[in-house]
């Protein structure tokens, strides 16, 4: 039964998401696991994140089309390594940001970044 957690989102991904952008290629990361991590730590309580039906928080910016953005938090380059570090510990990269550090390990933050790069413009 636990496979359902992994399989179902995977199916959804295959069904409706464009392939990740070349610039954001992350060979060791797994977007499906990233989505699971997003659900586990509750990123969506502040951000509307496509593919996560609930919640759809309004406090932080929506992450729709994230892969197409040039900057993270309006000031950092939108690169895989920066994003992975940012989702884990935003305050140390961008002092003064409203995004707090989140309880993710390095591998998980790479997965999360990989998931965010599946969010292209539609």
């Amino acid at each position, binding site marked *: 039964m636990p496979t359902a957690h992994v399989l179902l989102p995977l199916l959804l991904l295959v069904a409706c998401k464009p392939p990740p952008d070349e610039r954001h290629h992350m060979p060791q990361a797994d977007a499906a*696991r990233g989505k699971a991590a997003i659900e586990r730590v509750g990123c969506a*309580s502040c951000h509307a994140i496509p593919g996560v039906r609930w919640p759809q928080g*309004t406090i932080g910016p929506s992450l729709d089309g994230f892969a197409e953005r040039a900057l993270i938090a309006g000031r950092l380059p939108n690169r895989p390594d920066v994003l992975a570090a940012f989702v884990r510990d935003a305050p140390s990269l961008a002092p003064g940001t409203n995004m707090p550090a989140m*309880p993710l390990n390095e591998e998980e933050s790479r997965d999360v970044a990989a998931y965010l790069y599946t969010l292209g413009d539609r």
Partner: protein
Amino acid sequence: MSPPISTRSAIADALAGWPPPVFDPAGPYAGSITTLAWVLLVMSVVVLGVVLVALWLALFGSKRQRARVGGTKAVWTGGIIFPVIVLTLLLVYGLSLTRSLTAPIRGDEMRVRITGEMWWWRVAYLDGEGRATMVDANELHIPTGRPVVLELESSDVIHSFWVPRLSGKLDMIPGRRNLMRIQADRPGVFGGQCAEYCGGPHALMGFVVVAHRPQDFAAMMAARRTRTVALSPQAARGAQLFADAGCAACHRIAGTPANGLAGPDLTHVGSRRSLGAGILPNNRGTMIGWIGDSQAIKPGNRMPRYTVLPGEDLQALAAYLEARK
């Protein structure tokens, strides 16, 4: 395919539906019902089998078989004698189990009052005289290996308390107090959710019970009582905001002027495994999201949205609450 990893938080583990909680008891009260459930399941399958065989013989059996099924004698046997025997046996079993599960409460058990609220749970640990010694919300800590008596009440509409791995359910009815015993025989986190429709976000009204080994439990409760909170500058600013932004009107934090009773007690909110009554993991980010706009997360809940608060204020409040272990 990638190797399976644990995608569950502690709270999700507590609330997992597999193995089915009714068949995966963690203590004697749920356990005896599990035995009953298996007996009933087997009984049902056997009786269904008897009926299906009778029907099969009636439709496709030989002449002799059909004659045997097709008479008043068969009706007496299958429709009266057989059910009466089966039902009587079950009834005796069921009633004796009911009696043992509702045996009078000794009185020396640990007592906790849990009050159903729209749409969360007020938790008060009681002393021998029934006075609250510690107040919490949406989470209950118990020691393993001994029964804990819950006084179930409601302050608004009818709710129902159900943590299937520990016990069956019991309603919380305004104007009444129902007593329930739970017991966990192994440490762990056991979840449940409100089982009586209570309007609005009834679907999002979860609860967790955390069972500790007795020595761990005692240590944890003692630590809670004696803990002094050292606040970082950011958290200190949050404490100020908590008073200024009106949070204290609804929430209580023991040892501070905040004394509101309408919403959950936040004295130990930082140590909880969930936010929003068993629905969100508890971390800095979800705390910010919940404070800022809980309506987007749990529509219809009684906490207003605070989207007017600037980000740094939300940060400070979250830092402050996170420190309230």
